[in-house]
């Protein structure tokens, strides 16, 4: 029977065995992490639709949730979504994201993604109020799994923006002089609400003469639900000294916290 090995030999042997054990542990844990992450199931809340909400500060809030089923034992840490929304031809329109989240192992989490479109403050705002658009979205997902590996996933997609005043028209009709010396200008205002929120507020209509002098102003309350249409003809009476021919019609919308002037319409 061999005698007990000396201390230095045993120490060296122990270190070699620990070295082998370290390899085994790292390989097994990594393999298990890879196996676990293969069972992760991502999905978006309410399909691919985003909710829209017109905030009192004139900003449209776009929101969705990103659901992640994480059945494995390891956690996702620093889970973060970032969305960059562009407007074709005008560059970056809005930036949104989610809070920095941790999704524990064996759980399912819903991570909210919120994007704020500054309608009043943005140069593209008036256009987006009156025109549907396909907005390019760069979506980034960053996370670390099991403290072992980090991933950055980028997806390019489009967001179908529904304008709340799609195809807004304020079309002046034929000018009709009245017996009392005033001039009647009928103005047909129409639009379709393609947004998912209602258009509630005031539409003001102003007629300017060819020289830019204000001739007449009127306003009306609107309450057009999502998906609805609006069509109404307003009658504006101009004073004797105001010739609308060659002038223009200005329409502005005032809603909760937002006032937007639409592009002028010329009066023939």
């Amino acid at each position, binding site marked *: 029977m*061999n*005698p*007990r*090995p*000396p201390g*230095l*030999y045993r*120490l*060296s*042997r122990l*270190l*070699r065995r*620990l*070295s*082998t054990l*370290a*390899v085994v542990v*790292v*390989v097994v844990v*990594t393999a298990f992490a890879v196996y676990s992450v293969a069972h992760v199931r991502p999905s978006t809340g309410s399909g691919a639709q985003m909710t829209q909400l017109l905030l009192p500060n004139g900003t449209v809030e776009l929101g969705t949730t990103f659901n992640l089923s994480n059945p494995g034992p390891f956690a996702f840490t620093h889970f973060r979504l970032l969305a960059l929304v562009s407007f074709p031809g005008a560059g970056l329109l809005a930036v949104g994201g989610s809070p920095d989240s941790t999704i524990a192992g064996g759980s399912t989490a819903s991570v909210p993604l919120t994007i704020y479109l500054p309608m009043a403050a943005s140069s593209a705002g008036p256009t987006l109020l009156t025109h549907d658009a396909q907005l390019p979205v760069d979506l980034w997902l960053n996370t670390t799994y099991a*403290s*072992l*590996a*980090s*991933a*950055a*996933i*980028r*997806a*390019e*997609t489009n967001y179908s923006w529904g304008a709340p005043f799609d195809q807004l028209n304020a079309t002046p009709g034929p000018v009709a002089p009245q017996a009392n010396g005033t001039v009647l200008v009928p103005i047909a205002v129409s639009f379709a609400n393609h947004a998912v929120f209602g258009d509630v507020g005031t539409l003001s209509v102003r007629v300017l003469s060819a020289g830019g002098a204000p001739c007449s102003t009127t306003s009306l309350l609107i309450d057009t639900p999502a998906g609805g249409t609006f069509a109404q003809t307003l009658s504006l009476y101009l004073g004797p000294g105001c010739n609308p021919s060659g002038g223009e019609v200005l329409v502005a919308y005032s809603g909760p916290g937002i006032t937007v002037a639409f592009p002028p319409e010329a009066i023939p």
Partner: protein
Amino acid sequence: MSGEVVPAGARGEIAPPTLFAPDSPTLSPVARVPGLAHRFAVSVALFVVALVVIAYLPYELLRRLEGTAVSIAVTPFEVLAVGAAMSLLLALRYLAKPTVAYGPMAMLTAAAGIAYLFWLAARATVAVVPGHGVGITVTYGTVLELLAVAPLLSLLAAVVTTIEDLRHPGERLRFDYPA
């Protein structure tokens, strides 16, 4: 020649008696030290196996990934060259096991392993671009840094073996190659 029972350190060309003399009173005076030819044959076999596992297979994998949607920050040639060097060190380490060169050789091999893993860790990024506007980048350097614990422990073991060889030459042969 392999398996022959000889006094520890008796093979001058393998374990010089002046360094590996059985000076410890607790040691048996004999060890079954494989001959140089036997160790050389095993070293060649070890080299070939290591070359396949840590050089050729990664090389082939990376080569097949070239031109696909997957891109890795390490080139196939780099992996092949470093893997071949590591395989050679492993083979030489085995060849030198019964000699005093084993400790320094093992230290060199472990240090090279650590350096290789950290070099890989700095480039441990896989980018996958499957198309349709989707791109995935995975960074896994932490795995390789954790894996470097293994050669670090091997390095410590080699240091201890080197000290043991210097203080008690030939002492370990009886246990590395029991009769």
